[in-house]
């Protein structure tokens, strides 16, 4: 949700509640005032009646018109108090109930008690209140409308530098050679924001560059001794004086060096992916790549007599070809290594996911297998293959999962969460 939208929502809620509460308070206050006014009128009427009775010792003539009613009822019991109340009375001519304010008080004439009642309609008061409510609503609508446009204009203007900064940040990439440059701003907060973001981004860039240099140097430094070992051995095995025992030992050294080299390359690859040193900007025909890889592994499948089932649909993804090749290499290498003789391998690619399943006996530890250096018992690998797969998938935003189903180890890579497809 946009900041402006959120602000507008909160603003609307706040304004409406304030106006509603104040309208209600206003209503109560005005009502009280009007009723008090009415009561004062009624009290004056009572006084007039009392005065009349005092002078004439007789009842005044009853009154019955729209604005006022006055009548007397003989009173059985003694009543001394005066009461003011609202009553609702059916009006035959208007055919509806009308609310009156009335004052009741006792009068004594020639020793006889009467209850005098003076009524005045409250309708006028009600009308007034209706007007007040109407005016309030109109005010509310006008106010909200005005606020909406004012906010829209000013907020947009105020937040403009922020959005500019955001745009620049979106364009910023660690892999590009340009540094981040943000314009200075008159508003202190934005100026500070730009300054902090710039210093942070450029700091990150420096660190990234030095890390990259380190990775490259480390790679170079480790490759050289390994290369020397290998080349020396290539020369050494040519020696005709070597016997079988020597050659067997040399073979073990070869294997160990091979493992070491593979380990080093895997670790460097993981670092490289973590550092984001790969770009995801190549269009790769995944089905074609899988076919190529399957052909490349053909002899290996054959040597273990692994039954192959490949189902591919055309699938184009925007990612990195080198990484996809590594991903497939690792998946297929694993499949070859861990499938028993005469086992089964299924590769199924559709628009949404890639499924690679191979026969197996028992389920692997779902939670651990993707961790670095995790090994199942008797595993000949180093425990980095799946870690690399996970890292590549994380980089691509492809969720990867494992399940054991119908005596098959299944690895599923889903393409749905990818951001790259839509771009």
């Amino acid at each position, binding site marked *: 949700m946009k900041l402006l939208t959120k602000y507008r929502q909160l603003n609307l809620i706040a304004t409406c509640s304030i106006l509603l509460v104040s309208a209600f308070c206003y209503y109560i206050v005005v009502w009280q005032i009007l009723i008090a006014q009415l009561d004062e009128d009624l009290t004056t009427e009572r006084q007039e009646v009392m005065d009349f009775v005092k002078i004439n010792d007789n009842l005044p003539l009853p009154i019955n018109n729209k604005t006022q009613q006055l009548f007397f009822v003989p009173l059985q019991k003694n009543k001394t108090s005066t009461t003011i109340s609202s009553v609702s009375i059916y009006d035959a001519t208007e055919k509806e109930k009308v609310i009156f304010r009335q004052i009741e008080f006792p009068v004594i004439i020639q020793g006889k008690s009467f209850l005098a009642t003076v009524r005045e309609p409250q309708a006028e008061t009600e009308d007034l209140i209706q007007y007040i409510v109407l005016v309030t609503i109109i005010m509310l609508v006008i106010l909200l409308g005005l606020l909406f446009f004012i906010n829209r204009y000013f907020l947009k203007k105020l937040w403009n530098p922020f959005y500019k900064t955001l745009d620049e940040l979106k364009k910023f990439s660690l892999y590009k050679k340009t540094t981040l440059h943000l314009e200075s701003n008159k508003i202190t907060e934005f100026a500070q924001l730009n300054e902090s973001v710039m210093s942070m981004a450029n700091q990150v860039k420096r660190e990234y560059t030095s890390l990259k240099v380190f990775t490259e140097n480390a790679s170079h430094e480790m490759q050289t001794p390994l290369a020397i070992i290998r080349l020396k051995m290539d020369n050494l095995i040519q020696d005709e004086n070597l016997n079988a025992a020597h050659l067997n030992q040399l073979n073990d050294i070869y294997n160990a060096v091979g493992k070491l080299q593979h380990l080093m390359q895997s670790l460097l690859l993981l670092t490289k992916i973590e550092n984001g040193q790969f770009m995801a900007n190549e269009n790769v025909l995944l089905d074609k790549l899988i076919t190529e890889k399957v052909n490349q592994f053909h002899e290996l499948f054959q040597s273990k007599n692994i039954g192959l089932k490949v189902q591919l649909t055309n699938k184009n993804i925007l990612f990195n070809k*080198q990484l996809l090749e590594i991903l497939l290499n690792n998946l297929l290498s694993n499949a070859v290594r861990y499938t028993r003789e005469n086992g089964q391998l299924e590769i199924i690619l559709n628009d949404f996911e890639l499924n690679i399943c191979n026969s197996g006996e028992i389920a692997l530890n779902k939670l651990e297998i993707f961790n670095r250096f995790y090994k199942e018992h008797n595993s000949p690998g180093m425990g980095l293959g799946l870690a690399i797969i996970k890292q590549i998938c994380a980089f691509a935003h492809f969720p990867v999962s494992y399940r054991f189903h119908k005596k098959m180890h299944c690895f599923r890579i889903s393409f749905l969460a990818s951001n790259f497809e839509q771009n």
Partner: protein
Amino acid sequence: MQKSFRLKILIIEDEQQLAESMAAYLTVENYICEIAFTLKEAHDKTEIFEYDCILLDIGLPDGNGLEILKYLKADKKEDCVLIISAKNSLDDRVTGLQLGADDYLVKPFHLTELSARIAAIIRRKKYHGNNLIVFFEIKLDTLSQTVFIHQKEITLTKKEYQLLLYFLINKGRIISKDAIANHLWGDEMDMTNNFDFIYTHIKNLRKKLAEAGSNDYIKSVYGMGYQFTNS
């Protein structure tokens, strides 16, 4: 490949041990090897002499090895160049090949692989007419990718052909199984030293050669690898 003259190779590599190992191996292969440890040395040597092939390391103490490529290009020299780099970086590879290098090999590599790459480059670039590799009754034509035994053509699969070519170029040398696997399937397949599948191919190649009346030159060397030899 009995040639009356020896091909000259310049090894530009700052790591002495590596340079000397390569030189030792290639000298046995009947190449004349010279070594340059710095960019300046390499510069001086290429200016005066002409080489059939230059092995070029990119990371040199006094500069980027790619400079040599630029210089050779500017001077219109046609020496073959094989880049040898510790960096398996796509950028370097692309830049190197764009600057006119003929191939790119990533460290660490096997000497048998180096030898095969050098032979391929030289064959391709320097001796357009000479596509034949002959070893007693075996004749291999690299242009048409055909193999003849006693002048009779035999049919090999692509992998068997590559394997035979690899053996012929590295004849007499012991080739480790690791080197064979890397050569035929690339080094990205992680087989953790399980090279049983190579055996099938060796077996098939042997069978085809024998059926055509060839001697068995492929010798297995104590679990280490194979040797193509007539001794």
